[in-house]
């Protein structure tokens, strides 16, 4: 156990390393910083919301570097696109941190942060879930008929409209095979930054669907580019949160020790599965996080603490993390079996079938 005298809380060293490892696998696999899981987990463990937000942000800095190093080797990063987005993101983080400091002393900070997180996760999760379900049905049908798989949609209707915007400067991103106006990219970066600063997330779960559905990037290119961009937004957030006294660096360090291994595993598994698998895991992890956060929010809003709600939130957040890690490991095993010509369940084929 490690005691944190600055906030009067005691936490387990091994638990911190394990949480880092589990969230790291998810982070490396789906290309998010992991703050959207880490922040509620730390709040559930008893850290005050502002400390949970700031400490998550510091951890994300180190964790996204670990993931970026591996994704660069995998060719999953469009550095030019990432750098362009950063300008918008940094302005957004500043706005987000100021908002957080405004509500810090109201007494409702925990409830407000959790509410914003829940609304954002639902808003992102539902359309992503619909798209993934439709895409899987298409892939299953094509595989059943032994036909060529339908080409991946490169963006949604809103995305096509954004890409059609002809407001100068229009930039060409060779790695992503994309030509687009600077402004939509800056806008996405700005919105992401506000959330990063306010909720303590690196913004990955906003960046990722935005890059895939609005900008039109292939899934794994979005994963690497998102992580690369998060290094900068999280660094800026880490500076601002440290200045506000929201960071306990020893906790961030312990989590980073675990996540450095987990993130590598997650990133390497992307070599074996199809992009749709990543989006499936993203949707499921968002769903689990929403349920855990809702229970915690109800507990906060009730006049007296309710033990079963606290235990439920704890079980869903940590059980969910374990479940997602098992899912990723399961997908990896199925992909290996499929490549070796061993039998795999029919519904898995569309998730793991991939070119060599």
């Amino acid at each position: 156990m490690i005691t944190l005298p600055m906030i009067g809380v005691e936490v387990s060293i091994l638990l911190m390393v394990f949480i880092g490892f589990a969230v790291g696998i998810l982070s490396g696999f789906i290309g998010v910083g992991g703050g959207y899981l880490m922040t509620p987990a730390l709040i559930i463990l008893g850290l005050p919301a502002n400390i949970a937000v700031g400490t998550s942000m510091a951890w994300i800095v180190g964790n996204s570097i670990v993931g970026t190093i591996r994704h660069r080797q995998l060719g999953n990063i469009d550095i030019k696109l990432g750098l362009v987005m950063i300008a918008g993101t940094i302005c957004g983080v500043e706005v987000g941190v100021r908002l957080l400091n405004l509500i810090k002393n109201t007494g409702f900070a925990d409830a407000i942060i959790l509410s914003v997180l829940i609304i954002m996760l639902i808003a992102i999760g539902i359309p992503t879930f619909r798209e993934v379900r439709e895409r899987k049905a298409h892939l299953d049908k094509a595989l059943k008929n032994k036909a060529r798989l339908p080409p991946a949609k490169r963006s949604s209707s809103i995305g096509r409209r954004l890409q059609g915007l002809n407001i100068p400067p229009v930039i060409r991103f060779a790695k992503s095979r994309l030509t687009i106006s600077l402004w939509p990219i800056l806008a996405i970066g700005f919105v992401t930054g506000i959330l990063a600063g306010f909720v303590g997330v690196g913004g990955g779960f906003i960046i990722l669907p935005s890059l895939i559905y609005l900008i039109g990037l292939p899934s794994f290119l979005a994963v690497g580019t998102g992580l690369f961009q998060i290094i900068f937004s999280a660094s800026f957030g880490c500076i601002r949160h440290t200045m506000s006294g929201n960071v306990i660096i020893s906790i961030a360090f312990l989590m980073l020790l675990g996540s450095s291994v987990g993130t590598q595993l997650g990133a390497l598994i992307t070599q074996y599965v199809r992009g749709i698998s990543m989006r499936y895991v993203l949707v499921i992890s968002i769903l689990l996080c929403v349920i855990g956060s809702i229970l915690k929010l109800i507990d906060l809003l009730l006049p007296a603490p309710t033990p079963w709600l606290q235990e439920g939130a704890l079980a869903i957040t940590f059980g969910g993390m374990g479940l997602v890690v098992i899912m990723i490991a399961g997908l990896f095993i199925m992909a290996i079996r499929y490549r070796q010509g061993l039998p795999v369940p029919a519904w898995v084929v569309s998730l793991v079938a991939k070119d060599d």
Partner: protein
Amino acid sequence: MGKRKNDAIWVAVLTIISCFIIWHVFHWYYIGMYLKMFDWIGTDSTYIVVLYNLGLMLGVGFVLGFLMKKITDLVGYKVRETKHFEQEEVGNNK
């Protein structure tokens, strides 16, 4: 020098650096340095805490990231680049 030997040296060096950083963090925790630094926030010494926190996270991220990369190189694991624009457009070619 062979690539494998080169990788082994890198792994050894990065492991030593990682162990040193781990020792440093625990040492500073036990002597109460982090508590002292927490009290510096809001004073003229805030910038030291900011630089330390950011530097530690960036440094540890780089060291551990490269250590993991070099370990996979050392064990001979081959990392292939992802084919982004063919992945979902080509049929089942098991």
